[in-house]
């Protein structure tokens, strides 16, 4: 089955952020495919490479990167929701004259049309709020 994920929850604040990661791993191990993971609302913080958890905690950003590299996942962060919350790629940092950026591949910033595309082209879309 094709299952896309919509992640609305913020890493480290909400259990559902980790639940999404565990769900994704379980679904992929079971042979399902995940056409897209879309990060929206407070979920846009998930891709920040400046996350610096303590050593005995999960690094959620890093775990998504590893999973994406292994399974060629499409990790899309809503650009409008990300920019206002301070999550920028180097291109957006240059565009808005900011000195820092914190989003890199495999995460990418794109529009809400990518969420619609994921919903229309998946058998199911599971929301983690």
């Amino acid at each position, binding site marked *: 089955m094709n299952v896309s994920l*919509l992640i*609305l929850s913020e890493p480290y604040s909400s259990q559902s952020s980790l639940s999404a990661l565990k769900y994704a791993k379980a679904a992929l191990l079971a042979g399902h495919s995940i056409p897209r993971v879309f990060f*929206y*609302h407070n979920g846009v913080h998930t891709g920040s490479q400046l996350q610096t958890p303590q050593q005995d905690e999960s690094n959620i950003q890093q775990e998504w990167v590893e999973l994406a590299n292994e399974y060629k996942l499409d990790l899309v962060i809503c650009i*409008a*929701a990300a920019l206002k919350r301070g999550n920028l790629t180097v291109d957006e940092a240059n565009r808005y004259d900011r000195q820092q950026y914190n989003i890199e591949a495999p995460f990418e910033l794109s*529009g*809400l*049309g990518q*969420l*619609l595309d994921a*919903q*229309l082209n998946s058998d199911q*879309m599971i*929301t983690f*709020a």
Partner: protein
Amino acid sequence: MTKNILVIQRTAPYGSSLGREGLDYVLTSAAYDQNISLLFLGDGAFQLLSNQQSKHINLKNQLSALEVLPLYDIENLYVTQEDLSERNLSQSQLGIKVIVIKRADVHNLIEQQDHVVGF
């Protein structure tokens, strides 16, 4: 490829930006010619109240944003009678035309859809 999509709004209009961001998804989907219905469930019913004074808390008015929906041919807005009455709301307090259904009919509304997403 036009599909029937139900967007469920479950949060009050301010307090969290989720209602606003859910509405952004509605407008995006409508721009791509999808057939969108909206269900204001639970505290989502508060988004429909007239006379919202959100400028006092430096936020855009959610009702004003909902009022543009007919321009996108989105006219199927639903709320349940139970959610209104449990919150002591009457239809006369709502600032936008909405279809009041029974809670027991929500599953019929969902079954009519190709896709459902909740915010």
